[in-house]
């Protein structure tokens, strides 16, 4: 199943990823789903992974801590500090992974229109190392190198 059109991922600069997604709900609910542990536990993480630890101190300077557990029992921890919180419009937090060096800054903006909410999340990598760590973990899944996929790749990169 192709999900382009739902989730859009672009790279305006070599250290930024911008993700855009529309949700069929008012932003008050979407913001809650992104900031309340009891709600995050229902959805956060790739397929097959579950959020086993989710602690959030939702205030500027407050710390958040997540641990995801994979199907093979492997755990992945992440944490950071909140820099800005303006419910239900905007939040800025830092993010780092237990197993990788460095930190990125995530700015989430929620815009509501006609009962639907558009989330724009900008991930800014502070260092080359963290960006590369993320790239490498993505590449573990193996990217297809066939020419058939080129058009699709170009679409992914250059939207």
């Amino acid at each position, binding site marked *: 199943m192709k999900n382009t059109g739902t989730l859009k991922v672009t790279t305006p600069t*070599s250290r930024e990823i911008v993700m855009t997604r529309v949700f069929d709900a008012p932003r008050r609910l979407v913001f809650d789903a992104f900031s309340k542990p009891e709600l995050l536990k229902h959805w956060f993480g790739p397929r097959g992974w579950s959020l086993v630890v989710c602690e959030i101190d939702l205030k500027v300077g407050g710390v958040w801590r997540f641990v995801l557990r994979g199907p093979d029992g492997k755990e992945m921890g992440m944490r950071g500090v909140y820099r800005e919180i303006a419910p239900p419009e905007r939040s800025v937090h830092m993010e780092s992974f237990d197993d990788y060096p460095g930190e990125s800054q995530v700015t989430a903006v929620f815009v509501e229109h006609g009962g639907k909410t558009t989330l724009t999340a900008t991930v800014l990598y502070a260092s080359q190392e963290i960006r590369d760590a993320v790239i490498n973990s*993505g*590449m573990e899944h193996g990217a*297809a190198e066939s020419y058939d996929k*080129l058009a699709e*790749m170009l679409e992914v*990169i250059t939207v």
Partner: protein
Amino acid sequence: MTASQRLDATFAALADPTRRAILARLASGDAPVAELAKPFAMSQPAISKHLKVLERAGLISRGRDAQRRPRRIEAKPLAGASGWLEGYRRFWEGSFQRLDALLDEMKTQEKKACARSARGEKHR
């Protein structure tokens, strides 16, 4: 070049709309410089500059035919950049599909709560 320098070169090369258009054209088959220049209101030397950037980033190569020197798209560096984005996309798309379901449930709960309080007010 390290993997990280390669990605920098790939993203820098892809940052320009003319170069993206050239790659999109080459994705459907090899083409000589003159043909690649055609759709653009640009001199052939200007196009050649773009081709040099793409070539340095390893995104295109030159074909064997010495006369025409057709340019060819190279899949590998593109796969590196898109592999990164694909991993990222997979993480979030999986999450967001579950979030869609949760939001539907939250909306339903809210409507029920609303209906309950409306009924409550009537009884008062």
